[in-house]
């Protein structure tokens, strides 16, 4: 069945290249947003309030998280709910290949796309604005991996509990904006007032933001933040698996 899984993955990858909208928001938009912010002159100046760092330095991890949120909450629900609604999963159930293969392929592709987009953000940040590469690379990658699982599992949960594609879009958007806020898109988590920052750090994206920021600065992320992320990833995955309906 290895060849069948490969065939499904290849086909889904080809189909993804036919979705310019998805590709724009997933791969281009996070980098674009960071570039626009980087073009604001004041954001490139060292800020004593930020311990001598620049606003753009804080926005690189934020834009990387934005790519993950796009993959999980914007790209995944319409695709997977559409596959269920159109009976594509059911049709596949009558073949020797299980429909899980189709879901797995999409998760792999969207996760891969999100990580590629995050890599693009980091590369462009380094080249265009001289943003330092993560000081603690292993910690950064671990935090990014946990955040990816969390974001995709959140999308999976949306797919699981949404009866229709329309409902999926509504629920996805309802989670999309809070996720962006907690990731620090409007206000980087590190610049939030203390109480807000504490609350936000219990959300999956807020914890991710703190962990990525710590690793950027060269330290190992706090275990508390990594723990919060791991717990969310576990709960969201379990919920998605528990409530997912095949038809």
């Amino acid at each position: 069945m290895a060849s069948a899984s490969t065939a499904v993955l290849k086909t889904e990858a080809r189909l993804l290249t036919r979705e310019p909208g998805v590709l724009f928001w997933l791969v281009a938009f996070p980098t674009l947003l960071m570039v626009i912010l980087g073009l604001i002159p004041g954001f490139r100046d060292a800020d004593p309030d930020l311990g001598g760092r620049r606003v753009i330095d804080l926005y690189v991890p934020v834009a990387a998280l934005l790519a993950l949120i796009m993959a999980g909450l914007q790209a995944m629900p319409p695709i997977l709910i559409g596959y269920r609604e159109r009976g594509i999963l059911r049709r596949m159930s009558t073949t020797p290949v299980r429909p899980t293969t189709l879901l797995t392929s999409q998760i792999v592709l969207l996760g891969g796309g999100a990580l590629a987009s995050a890599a693009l953000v980091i590369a462009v940040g380094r080249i265009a604005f001289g943003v330092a590469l993560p000081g603690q690379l292993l910690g950064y990658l671990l935090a990014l991996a946990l955040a990816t699982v969390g974001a995709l599992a959140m999308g999976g949960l949306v797919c699981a509990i949404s009866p229709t594609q329309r409902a999926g879009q509504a629920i996805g958007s309802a989670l999309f904006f809070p996720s962006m806020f907690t990731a620090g898109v409007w206000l980087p988590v590190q610049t939030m007032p203390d109480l807000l920052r504490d609350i936000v750090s219990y959300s999956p994206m807020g914890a991710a933001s703190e962990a990525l920021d710590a690793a950027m600065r060269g330290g190992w992320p706090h275990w508390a933040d990594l723990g919060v992320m791991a717990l969310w990833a576990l709960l969201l995955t379990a919920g998605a698996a528990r409530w997912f309906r095949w038809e």
Partner: protein
Amino acid sequence: MAIIEVNGLRKAYGGKPAVDGVGFTVEEGEIFGILGPNGAGKTTTVECVEGLRVPDAGTVRVAGLDPVADHRQVTQLLGAQLQESELQPKLTVREALELYSAFYAKPADWRPLAARLGLDAKLSTRFAKLSGGQKQRLFIALALIGGPRVVVLDELTTGLDPRARRDTWSLIEEIRDSGVTVLLVTHFMEEAQRLCDRIAVIDRGKVAALDTPSGLIARSTASTVISFAPSRALPDEDVSALPGMASVETQGDRIVINGTDDTVNAVITLLARHRVTAHQLRVTEATLDDAFLDLTENGPGVSSAPTTTATTERV
């Protein structure tokens, strides 16, 4: 040899039985029809055969295998076309054929298959751009691509125009002639009468009758319809004493008698005896329609709803 065996099949949704004790066997090499009004349990029955649903009670065997427990083996020898299922909208015909070929241990070569189904000019067309008939032909191709011994076709021709429907019928006959058993779900009488070797009429979750199309028609209480406009009125007592007569009614100046071959002869004798001329005499064979309505409306406690549905569906 029976390739599909269904015994005492029951399946309820939310306590409401959809299929309630259905049983039949499909012999290898035949076109077996499942006919019935909407909501009769046809699709649920074949979904149990395909292993998409787990029966509440009863057994289903495909070539001796359990479609649920032995799902993977059954999928290698049973091809399915589902009612209301689609493919990824931007997947092309060629990609769909190649993808589904990769699913099977011994796939058929998809190129001749596509040619046989008239899809060779559409290989680069995306699924969403295909016409209804082309989509259905693609689904037939995908059902056949694994080289199955049996295919299940569920409401294949619903929504097709008459020409596309007739083309599809020839395809189904070709499939049978190539040695593949066909389990055909339909609510089109004409389709069932033309294609099926045997038909199970399913009504309200039960098999109401199982026979060949001509057997079902012969079983119908009124297999022959005699109608004419008499030059003079015939005595009522003579008309009601006609042998084999099932019903008589007057439509304007015409008399319509439902009966058998015996009734036809008796009517002619009666006319001669009373020296009555029959204008516009018509003797017509009852169709599967009549047999179907007979079988599905005579049960106890029936509302008029199933009959109305069946009638309006004969497009």
